[in-house]
């Protein structure tokens, strides 16, 4: 039984992704800051991520169309940079510093406590989708370590006993 081969193509709405007019405009605006539209690719990914929480496949295609560069190049950039998420993440992103000065001031105790509170390991998201826990390199607060960021907020001089209070602020 010879079935005709069905060619599956990735369409704009393959995962229901629609680039909003506001995001498209923001990306258009970014393009003008550079000699070449490609330079806006990282910012474009960040714009999409800001409105969707992460970067779905459809967004890669939409950005490649808007910037006139291959989708594979956009994907290459999206997977290279650690702050671009190609899979769904939690509503709040916890990024704890695991670099050398925080090693001395004791980030391991902080991670252990976070793992206990959230019941997840680094790289995972809580089942209720509230938090994603990620390590990050030096946050430039070495005189106030251990340190972490939750979304855009920086928290310094962490001690395991005050973590519950900090997490409480992010519902």
């Amino acid at each position, binding site marked *: 039984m010879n079935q005709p081969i069905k060619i599956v193509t990735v369409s704009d709405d393959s995962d229901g992704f629609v680039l909003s007019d506001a995001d498209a405009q923001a990306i258009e605006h970014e393009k003008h800051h550079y000699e070449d539209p490609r330079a806006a*690719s990282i*910012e474009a990914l*960040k714009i999409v991520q800001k409105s969707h929480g992460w970067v779905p496949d459809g967004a890669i295609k939409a950005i490649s169309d808007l910037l006139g560069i291959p989708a594979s190049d956009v994907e290459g950039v999206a997977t290279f940079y650690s702050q671009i998420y190609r899979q769904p993440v939690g509503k709040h992103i916890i990024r704890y510093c695991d*670099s050398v000065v925080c090693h*001395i001031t004791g980030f391991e105790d902080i991670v252990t406590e976070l793992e206990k509170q959230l019941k997840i390991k680094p790289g995972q998201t809580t089942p209720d989708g509230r938090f994603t826990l990620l390590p990050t390199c030096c946050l*430039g607060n*070495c*005189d106030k370590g251990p340190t972490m960021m939750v979304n855009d907020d920086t928290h310094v001089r962490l001690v395991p006993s005050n973590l519950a209070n900090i997490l409480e602020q992010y519902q």
Partner: protein
Amino acid sequence: MSLSINKTAESHPLTWCLREDEQPVWLDEYRRKEGYVGVEKALAMHPDEVVGLVKDAGLRGRGGAGFPTGLKWSLMPKDESMNIRYMICNADEMEPGTYKDRLLMEQMPHLLVEGMIIAAHAIKAYRGYIFLRGEYVEAAENLRKAIEEAKSAGLLGKDILGSGKDFELFVHTGAGRYICGEETALINSLEGRRANPRSKPPFPAVSGAWGKPTCVNNVESICNVPSILNRGVDWYKGLTVNGSNDCGTKLMGFSGRVNNPGLWELPMGTTAREILENYAGGMQEGLDLKTWQPGGAGTDFLLPEHLDLPMDFEHIQKAGSRLGTALAMAVDHKINMVSLLRNLEEFFARESCGWCTPCRDGLPWSVKVLRAIEHGEGQPGDIETLEQLCRSLAPGHTFCAHAPGAVEPLQSAIKYFREEFEAGISGQANNLREIRGIQPNQQ
């Protein structure tokens, strides 16, 4: 900056304007405190004169490598037909143990903007970018506001202060990855590509962003420029102490388990002991200094006996390390060196861009060996394997300085604390075979 030091424009050119309440210094206040005088002076001069002045002042790059800033500027092509040039500020501060550029950008954004305008005039750039790491949210906000203020005051844009000079400045924020701080990787990232370093030559001065002549300088280097224009070469050279051959002041600090970790603007040549004991308040109760890194994760460890060295490029290099960012890190006697090195090499292995094989494969290998030694499961030959990796990842084997920087702390830790590594080697080798002296290190 909590110490009550009497700071003046003559003694603390980078930080004397800082406010007690740690709020940013905006345009009006900045101008009251000699702000943008340097730009006025620079614009009245020929670009080559500005380059000459910064060269004569002896300013060396504050990002870690210490390349003379004026010399870097003078490498821009003389060919006037190459008229599209870029001035880029490397504000991708991510070196573990470094927190200096953050302070300047958050609290003194106009100092950086002023420095960028002068630099752009010197190298004849019409457009500039501040490449800022994505996590520095407050710095991005403050720099953007400062740029808007400067634009409204006619200090940026077309015909700056009626001089005929045009310059537009953008803040470009990154999306993570330490390697973006490497000058050519930064240019690739700015162009919207993966941040792999480029092969050199050609150097960015000839072919940088979009193939155009480009100059990349660190935040603190650029922030030194306005006062050099304002107060001159002799004053700048005279700031130094302890017979140092380097010039000017430097943001220096000590972190780790010291009483008062922090950041201070000090003359080049200030001894590490003075910073540790007088400013950082010495080691915490019950802790002794075991070793220290003078300037970031990628610098060789030094011993307590080296504390009396003047902190400058020449003296620290003679002792077998590098000044780097001059933000030192104290390691106390309770810290195990193998665990510390495992942490450092995990960082470098994770942040390798993967472009060159020695770096991509060698660094995870070192992590594997260090983990085994840390757990007391090291095998005879493991230390030799680490030493061999230090040689294979030395300068000249990779496109950029990432891997060479990664092995600097490793080679010096093995040199000074070999017994701690030996303590993690247990029993006989159970590897099946040796490959020319390299242990396969099976899991």
